[in-house]
């Protein structure tokens, strides 16, 4: 079942000589439960692709369909609400809210909808992430690996259809990187969520179903373990 479809996505930065075409007519789609990895040189357009797919940034041309809905056809407010319910983001620098505990950070997207979180789901995720004993801790009291696990928990909590991870292991050591990767795999396999992850580490692409390479704003599929 197709979850996300990208059609002729274009994005340009700057003007005149400083003009950079970050994305050139990018098109692809992903199905439910697929785990995709995006590789490419720095500045090739990987993050731009992810930001446009997640509705954080607006493309200059093309469309992104998520669960059949055109992201760019929505108004700002509608897109924000749709995004927090359908897209989970994981960033390299975690972006946790220092004033909230581990548990509060994880349920934050639900709180933004003024919904009461499903406590069973919270317990389950805390267990999967190995953070049961850290639930009342503040981000400042956690290690980098633990913080990234909290960020993953937050991305998965609302059961979004698509999880976008921008170099989630960039700030972590190899052991923590491996843990994060396993968690993302679980999201894809166990919870049937579509995951698209940017990485510089080719070793990490081994677990991906599909691997894409972005070169000078153009996307090509390299294949993957399952493909």
């Amino acid at each position, binding site marked *: 079942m197709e979850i996300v479809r990208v059609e002729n996505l274009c994005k340009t930065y700057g003007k005149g000589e400083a003009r950079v075409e970050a994305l050139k007519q990018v098109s692809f789609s992903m199905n439910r439960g697929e785990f995709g990895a995006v590789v490419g040189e720095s500045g090739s357009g990987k993050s731009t692709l992810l930001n446009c797919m997640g509705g954080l940034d607006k493309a200059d041309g093309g469309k992104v369909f998520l669960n059949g809905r055109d992201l760019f056809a929505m108004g700002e407010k509608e897109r*924000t609400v749709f995004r927090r319910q359908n*897209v989970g983001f994981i960033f390299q620098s975690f972006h946790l809210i*220092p004033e909230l505990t581990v548990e509060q950070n994880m349920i934050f*997207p639900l709180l*933004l909808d*003024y919904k009461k979180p499903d406590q069973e789901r919270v317990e389950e995720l805390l267990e999967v992430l190995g953070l049961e004993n850290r639930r009342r801790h503040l981000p*400042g009291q956690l290690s*980098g690996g633990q913080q990234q696990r909290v960020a993953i928990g937050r991305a998965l909590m609302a059961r979004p259809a698509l999880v976008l991870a921008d170099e989630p292991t960039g700030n972590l050591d190899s052991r923590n990187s491996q843990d994060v990767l396993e968690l993302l795999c679980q999201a894809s396999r166990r919870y049937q969520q579509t995951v698209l992850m940017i990485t510089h580490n080719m070793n990490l692409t081994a677990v991906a179903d599909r691997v894409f390479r972005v070169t000078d704003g153009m996307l090509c599929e390299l294949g993957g373990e399952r493909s």
Partner: protein
Amino acid sequence: MRHYLDLVSISAREHKRQNKMTRLCIVLAVFLVTVIFGMADMEMRSQMLQAVRSDGSWHAGFVANEEQGAILAARPEVKRIARYGALNYYRQDGYQIEGEETLICGFDPELLEMFPAVELLEGELPLEKQQAAVSETVRRRLGVQVGDTLTLTAPGGEALSYEITGITRDTALLAEKDALGISLSMEGFEALPREDAKAQEELYYVTFRSFTNIQRTIREIQGQLGLGEDEVRQNAKVLMLLFQSRDSYLMQFYFVAVVLAVLVLVAGVLMITASMNSSIARRTEFFGMLRCLGATRGQVIRFVRKEALGWCRQAIPLGVLGGSVVVWGLCALLRFLSPGLFEGLPVFGVSYMAILAGILVGLITVLLAARAPARRAAQVSPLTAVSGNGGSVQPAGRAANTKIFKVDVALGIHYASGSKRNFFLVSGSFAFSIILFLAFSTAVDFMHHALTPLQPWAPDVYAYSKEQKNLIPRGIREKIKDCPGVKRVFGRGFGELAVTTEEGEETLILLSYDEQQFAWAGDSLIEGKLEDVIAGKGILLAFREESILAGRDRLSVRREGNAQELLVCGILENIPYYSEAGGAAGVAICSEELFSRLTGETGYGVLDIQMEGNAGDQQVEEVRRRVEEACGEGISFSDKRIGNREARGAGYSMALFLYGFLAVIGLISFFNMVNSIAMSVSARMREYGAMRAIGMGTDQLIRMVLGETLTYTVFGVLFGCVAGIPLNRKLFTSLVTSRWGEAWRLPVGELVMMAGIVLAAVCLAVLGPARQIRRMTVVDTIGAE
């Protein structure tokens, strides 16, 4: 980039917005301090000008003989000394010119330097025994000129002749009493025949040199010359303005001034510290990075100092200049409102005290506040910084409470209250605005009590019958009204009726009012109908506590055997005339027509005339001529223009400065709140970007900012009231209750006004960041830094 300190300007370019707001905050704080101190300085100067004009610039006066005077003059502290003597001050001792009591004074020519109000209009001052200078009134009434001879009759009947050498301007007292006055040389004054020894006394007026401890010197002189307390005079107003008075009330006044000055300084310090604290996280991270790169603690401190001095270089001159411009504007306004009185006030006056206070508060606070992030950065271990964990998450002390409030509001509240230091600084700076406002508002209460305002009915000139008879014909009003320079003319008749009360027959004073006076009376009508009184149906009674006439609908009155009933049509809260009414049972007011019916008299006892602002002596003279023409000899005149001008001037200057203080405090509070919130939001933009990325809507972010703003505001207002109201009470007691006995009341008006300012500030404080948040692009924000 040649030097590591060049990074300061590069960093400034990168954080343009944040730096702009920091500078704005320094500008505001310096402006506040400069304006308040500058205004206080200018107000002191203007009060000094008025004090010198009305009372002279002398510091102390000693009743002394010639020998003691010589000792006094020889003292090193004495800068200027002049003898002065006055005779027939109350115009009842028998010194007369052409049969009219005359006030005589004798003085050394040096005295003129101490009394600028004594102005020589023509000729010269008398230097010889047989010479005299006469006042304007003498010249006008007796038609004498410089060079003429004048004869003064002493109480014993001796006739003394003087050659007139000059004409002096009337003093306020001479003009009001329409009295004749002559000035003699000291030699001539001493030669006057006197009836009692006390009249021989002469005063030595003294001005001391700068930096003299005047009170101590006066005590020393008293001891040296063996003078009693009643033989020493002090120029209270001038000494007060020189901070040289030891009067117990003035000591309380100084205490209030010191409290207010300290409050202003603390408010300035708090504002700057609070603003700099809002960017402490970003700056700590940056300085931490510098330390990791190998910068020593000293280098970081030098960096901080250069950065801070950069802010000061632009912000302090701007704040000082802005403050000075406002003070100049107020001085110009004062000169415009009362040109005669304030021409000595400089338009572009420089208040060194204000500038110094502004610079010191700005510079010292900025340098100290800027060090805090550097100190904190120095405590971060380089290892922590290098690992990348140091800067990724700014540690919070405790978690936000999402159980009571929704997450957006909860985070807003937490942002405000999470850091105790920040919370104290920001809400403290808000609180200080309220405390300042409440403290300064007591000065306005003081002003209302200290200055008897010039009431709308206050006349500039008035004519009255010498024997308290209603000799001025009513028809004269029309004649005077046509005179050039006359603004209003209104008159009153006075009569007495016998009124029957439970305690027997008492006196009721009856006044007749014309339309103009009835119009003013309307404002103080407590009950009843003014129209009925105007129509002649009855009388108005002036309210008096426990009056035996209270509660009566009708009064039985009698005059010269004719008894009749008078209808009481209303009660007036107060009337400007006969407020005490002596031993009379009360004061009643009626129409002119009823007055004539009751008393049989058709004239006025007093005719009040208000002149246009630009009316001069000639116009007043014309009025006087017409009155004299119509009424003949039995009329006296009183010219109150000088006194009125002084009262109006004192009122203008004090009101202008005090309301100016309040306006500046209100305005600064407003901008401080707006700027503090804008800075706080600006410092958190990266976090807001992350929240937007996670899915927070702009409305939710704005609610979060509102939550933060309201937290600061609510607690700021609370702290402000908790500290401000007792302070208001203390200052009110010192300034007002101790002198006029009025009890303190909760300053509701001031609180409501401050609440209005705070509310407006909250709205504007949220509006700016809301616009910024709406414009924010998530990708750029989270990608920044």
